């Protein structure tokens, strides 16, 4: 009988396509908006993900998210190193600097100063993040590595060549390399340099140390290490990569209207999907009411009918979901390739798939339930009228 149900479904092409379109449109809208939302939120943490190699970020107690920099005393580094369970700890500068370009314009840049000796936090060579140049170039005087988007943003389509200079805080900076960085929320170019360089590139402050990056010793979990660092230093806050990632996202979720806006769009997608798919499916079922009646008269049980209708709903749900999700993924794929001078905000995690799938499931269940109500309360005797 499942076969009969499927034949019934595909028999009416217009309605079938209508339902599939409704579901896939809803899935597309929800998946795509969720993915953009995830992308945007994820972009806020790009530096947390870019700066790799350590387990724990140590910062001022009052830091709320990665761009909220509250400088520490230089000695914080040594206080962290003194904590039991720290394999190593290095300094990191992260802040905004104002760069003066060759044409005299100014541009805000994200400045990341990595530890001079170890270069912990520099673009990850193992992951192919360094597109041009070598990390050792950072040790050259006035050397900085710029990110790919930053280069395109500042210099357009011009192919990368080392040697372009910028000026920051009246000091010269020579771009010696090109790095691939995760897209940022602020969309400013990113400059990597050594810590001692970075300190010179910003107007003088009494304290300059932004973060201490620490690695847990073997056998010590990062979470445990965070606890130890906070307990021993008392004035510092320590977060693992994941914790810092989520606390940054949490900040943006709480303090900006972004989640509400995207939430509304996703809701709209859901409602529109429900409306289109639900209504079409309902109409489809009502139209087939007579057929269902005959089937009931011919000995098809209600339970069997439920299964048939659910199967129909499931099929349109799955097909619509697949198409919509694929459409959303295609959107992201094209978007990331077409828009090259701005960092794309599109992230497609499994949670989006699950969310969309759940929403589609709700849509088809609601549609099927509404339709089933008519079918189940249908007296088989109507076939004789």
């Amino acid at each position, binding site marked *: *009988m499942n*076969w*009969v149900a499927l*034949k*019934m*479904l*595909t*028999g*009416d092409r217009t309605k079938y396509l209508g339902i599939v379109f409704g579901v896939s449109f809803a899935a597309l809208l929800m998946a795509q908006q969720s993915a953009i939302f995830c992308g945007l939120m994820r972009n806020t943490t790009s530096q947390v993900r870019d700066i790799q190699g350590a387990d724990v970020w140590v910062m001022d107690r009052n830091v709320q998210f990665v761009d909220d920099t509250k400088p520490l005393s230089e000695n914080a580094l040594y206080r962290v190193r003194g904590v039991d369970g720290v394999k190593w700890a290095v300094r990191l500068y992260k802040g905004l600097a104002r760069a003066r370009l060759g044409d005299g314009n100014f541009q805000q840049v994200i400045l990341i100063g990595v530890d001079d000796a170890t270069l912990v936090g520099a673009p990850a060579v193992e992951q192919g993040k360094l597109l041009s140049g070598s990390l050792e170039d950072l040790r050259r005087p006035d050397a900085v590595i710029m990110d790919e988007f930053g280069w395109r943003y500042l210099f357009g389509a011009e192919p990368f060549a080392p040697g372009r200079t910028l000026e920051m805080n009246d000091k010269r900076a020579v771009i010696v390399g090109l790095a691939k960085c995760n897209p940022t929320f602020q969309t400013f170019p990113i400059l990597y340099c050594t810590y001692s360089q970075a300190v010179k590139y910003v107007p003088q402050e009494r304290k300059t140390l932004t973060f201490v990056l620490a690695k847990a010793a073997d056998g010590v979990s990062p979470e445990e290490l965070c606890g130890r660092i906070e307990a021993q230093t008392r004035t510092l806050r320590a977060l693992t990569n994941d914790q810092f990632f989520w606390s940054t996202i949490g900040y943006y979720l709480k303090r900006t209207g972004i989640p509400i806006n995207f939430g509304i769009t996703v809701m709209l997608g859901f409602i529109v999907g429900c409306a289109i798919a639900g209504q079409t499916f309902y109409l489809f079922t009502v139209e087939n009411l*007579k*057929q269902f*009646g*005959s*089937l*009931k*008269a*011919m*000995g*098809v*049980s209600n339970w*069997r009918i439920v299964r048939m209708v659910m199967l129909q709903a499931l099929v349109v749900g799955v097909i619509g979901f697949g198409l919509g999700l694929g459409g959303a993924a295609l959107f992201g794929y094209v978007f990331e390739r077409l828009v090259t001078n701005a960092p794309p905000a599109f992230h497609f995690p499994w949670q989006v798939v699950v969310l969309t799938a759940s929403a589609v499931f709700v849509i088809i269940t609601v549609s099927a339930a509404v339709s089933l109500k008519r079918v189940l309360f249908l*007296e*088989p*005797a109507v*076939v*004789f*009228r």
Partner: protein
Amino acid sequence: MTATAAPPAISLRGITKEFGAGDTKTLALADVSLELPYGELVLLVGPSGCGKTTLISVVAGLLDATRGEVDVLGQNLTRMRGGRKVRFRGDNIGFVFQQYNLLPALTAAENAAVPLLINGWPRARAVAKASELLTAVGLGAKLKSYPNQLSGGQQQRVAIARALVHEPRLLVCDEPTAALDAASGRTVMDLIRKVAVQPDRAVIVVTHDSRVYDFGDRIVSMADGRVESVSQGGRLTANS
């Protein structure tokens, strides 16, 4: 000839059916008692609203009588529970509807195979058996046609094949000729006569089409929810 000693295919005793309640209560069947044998084509006739449809609905197990006892094919439908009744219908009763009620998405052969599919037959076997039957009713060339490609008479023949494909012991036809022209109507009734009427099968045809009275072995005429008369039909019995 019907053996008088054999139990009747259908036995109704004091069937009363009321619809609604209170002021809007209408009486559809009033104390109907009737016995119908196997092997006959019974015509149920009468004007619109006389209760024919209600009566066959009760006989086919689609409606429960308000009062009275219904025995169909030796089973007491009155005391039968919902699930068993559905299965009983699927196993034992064939239906032919006024509007054919074929599934437009299925071919003629597939439509005819639906009762077998309901009873859990594999699709290929079911369709093969249905095709045989369709060939027998003269639609061998139309097996792969969809209902909207068939004429009314052809559709009704498909419907008859569908009603008989699972070899039911009771065939219920609701105005099978009402939507057809005279010639097609005759063909259809001929077919019912020839194919459907079997010694171990009861056939009830509801009609108000006087043109087909000739085909009945027995004519039950109804008015106002009561059986007016039961008479022998204008035709000889099938095996004569």
